[in-house]
């Protein structure tokens, strides 16, 4: 220890000397977050006692930048992890470190890095602290920008999983060209064209996986698995079309049941937009695209790629109570979205104008015929639709009543298949209405009221596994939020199952914000459920008690 302190002092002195001479300067940025939780048992909502009394997640990111050079560190602590975070996170230490050079034409990162090719369907290394997900690659990342409009990326590394790294080696290369930038005759063209292509390969040692046909025999596993992406981003005037097609070679793994069926996926986005009006249609089809760096890994860790959910990311409590999670083994779906601003003075717009937002999405499984188990092709895909997985339509109207009062009213209808969460049961059909009113009382105070209702054909029955979902039944909710100046807020809310359901979830929160620092303390009951971000979900158990969160950026 003494030796270390000595080293530290020496280095500090050295650093100071160098900087005093003007060789070193630069600056430090970063952020700190601490989240704590206390919870006690509540049999109605299914909350368990926490033997440690207090759980805490914390992290600090520090980034040092000096001109084109930067270096970063992240310290993480889980003592012990918050409810819903994997117990394998328990502990503390250095979770991320890197050094990077970011020049005009060349960027190099050595250490941990995050990267994405295209829409991420063949490679996306990312982290989401709220999901407890960190797929960082530890290795090298090089990005070349030889001329404006051309980007070439190369990556190599191994993926982070909790405090360790997966055995599989991930390598990838990707190129993107904007034709308008590099072709003289396209410079002034109204056609906007960007083309891209990428290739990712995973290498993993052989292992013994028994064949389903004959348990005496082992599978002949591919040690290298490749995935390719082709994409185009086209535009003309108010129109744009983004498309990406990806395919993956034979990749028997734990998520697909060790079948040899190749993978593919297609994503299409067609958009028309002008000032005050936009319309878009999105289509997606996925067939066996679960791509992990370790073939035996199930769960949400070690994904090399990312398959975005096609449904809208709803934010109101009841609209997001049954979130949709991407089915990596197979799904096909559509989403359509329209936004329109009725101008002031128009028939529907009235004196202050009116905003209309329509959205709908539908997702089906693939229609497949099973042809065998582990060690075979597994299944073949027919052209029709499989079972209904999810569907929703929503209408949202936002209007200003006066300078001080704004309201939003939303109606939604939703169909949810519990199979999305690997749970038994029938389809849930839900009607949801939300009213949200913001009232700026005066310069220092504003109030927000939210009222929600959900009517569902599902019901709760503790003795029937097919009806054990605590979200079932008819619900009402009320919320009041009081903002005092720009620093303080207080809120109180309650969700109550008034028919066919169970649970009364009340919450009180107080928050204080000053600059980039925010402290929030809450007390109440938290629903058991899936926390989903971007179609990736984490199961959060019910909790009952105190939570607090502190974040600051510097």
């Amino acid at each position: 220890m003494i030796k270390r302190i000595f080293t530290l002092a020496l280095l500090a002195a050295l650093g100071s000397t160098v900087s005093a001479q003007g060789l070193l300067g630069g600056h430090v940025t970063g952020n700190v977050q601490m989240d704590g939780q206390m919870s006690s048992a509540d049999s109605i909502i299914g909350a368990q006692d926490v033997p440690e009394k207090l759980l805490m997640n914390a992290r600090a990111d520090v980034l040092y930048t000096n001109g084109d050079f930067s270096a970063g560190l992240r310290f993480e602590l889980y003592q012990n992890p918050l409810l819903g975070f994997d117990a394998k996170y328990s502990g503390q230490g250095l979770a991320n470190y890197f050094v990077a050079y970011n020049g005009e034409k060349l960027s190099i990162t050595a250490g941990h890095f995050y990267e994405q090719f295209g829409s991420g369907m063949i490679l996306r290394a990312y982290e989401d602290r709220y999901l407890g997900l960190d797929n960082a690659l530890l290795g090298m990342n090089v990005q070349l920008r030889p001329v404006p409009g051309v980007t070439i990326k190369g990556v190599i590394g191994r993926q982070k999983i909790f405090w360790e790294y997966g055995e599989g080696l991930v390598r990838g290369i990707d190129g993107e060209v904007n034709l308008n930038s590099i072709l003289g005759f396209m410079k002034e063209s109204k056609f906007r064209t960007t083309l891209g292509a990428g290739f990712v390969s995973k290498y993993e040692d052989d292992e013994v996986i028994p064949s389903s046909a004959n348990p005496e025999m082992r599978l002949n596993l591919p040690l290298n698995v490749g995935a390719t992406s082709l994409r185009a981003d086209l535009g003309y005037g108010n129109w744009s079309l983004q498309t990406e097609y990806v395919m993956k070679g034979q990749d028997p793994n734990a998520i697909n049941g060790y079948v040899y069926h190749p993978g593919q996926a297609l994503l299409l986005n067609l958009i028309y937009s002008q000032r005050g009006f936009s319309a878009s249609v999105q289509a997606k089809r996925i067939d066996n695209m679960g791509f992990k760096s370790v073939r035996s890994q199930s769960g949400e860790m070690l994904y090399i790629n990312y398959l975005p959910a096609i449904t809208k990311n709803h934010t109101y409590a009841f609209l997001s109570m049954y979130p949709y999670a991407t089915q990596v083994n197979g799904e096909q779906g559509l989403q359509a979205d329209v936004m329109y601003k009725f101008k002031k003075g128009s028939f529907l717009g009235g004196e202050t104008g009116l905003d209309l937002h329509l959205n709908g999405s539908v997702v089906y499984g693939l229609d497949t015929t099973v042809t065998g188990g582990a060690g075979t092709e597994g299944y073949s895909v027919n052209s029709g639709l499989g079972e209904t997985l999810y569907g929703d339509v929503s209408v949202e109207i936002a209007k200003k009543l006066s300078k001080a009062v704004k309201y939003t009213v939303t109606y939604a209808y939703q169909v949810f298949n519990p199979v999305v969460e690997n749970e038994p049961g029938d389809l849930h059909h839900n009607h949801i209405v939300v009213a949200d009113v913001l009232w700026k009382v005066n310069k220092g105070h504003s109030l927000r009221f939210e009222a929600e209702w959900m009517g569902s054909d599902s019901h709760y029955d503790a003795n029937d596994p097919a009806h054990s979902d605590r979200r079932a039944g008819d619900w009402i909710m009320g919320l009041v939020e009081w903002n005092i100046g720009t620093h303080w807020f207080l809120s109180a809310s309650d969700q109550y199952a008034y028919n066919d359901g169970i649970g009364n979830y009340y919450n009180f929160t107080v928050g204080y914000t000053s600059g980039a620092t925010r402290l929030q303390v809450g007390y109440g009951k938290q629903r058991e459920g899936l926390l989903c971000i971007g179609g990736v979900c984490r199961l959060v158990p019910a909790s009952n008690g105190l939570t607090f969160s502190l974040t600051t950026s510097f």
Partner: protein
Amino acid sequence: MKKILFTFIALILGGAAWAQNAKLPENITLKDIDGQSVQSSVIQNGGKPIIISFWATWCKPCNLELNTIKDLYDEWREETGVKLVAVSIDDARSAARVKPHVEGNDWPYEVYLDQNSDLKRAMGVVNVPHTFILNGNGEIVWQHTGYQAGGEEELIEKVRELLK
């Protein structure tokens, strides 16, 4: 590993103590609203202040903030010359929604997409909305997280202070 940590801390303590205000990182790759790659150095305002607002299509307070500022933006620009740059952190799921969202809401801002969160990480942002004010030299002089009704007044007041 520990050595790396110690060296790093030492460099920071020793080296950065004399540092000035942090600047906007220059060579981070973003996409403009038409999907073309650009470097973060394109964020310029001819020596006048810049507001950088990190947001996402699904973030309600972000939308409230940007919609509120929209009605004041012409006045702000005239008075202070400030420019608002809205950086979306929408990922692959909702990135395609950014352009229709911006145009559907009729936002007058310069908008960039930070799909891989490179700029978000480089600027130490945890949650959206997160707003920065850059002075005429591109130095970060103020930052704020979250938005509550009335927050826009505080924001423009900080910009006005720069011009005094």
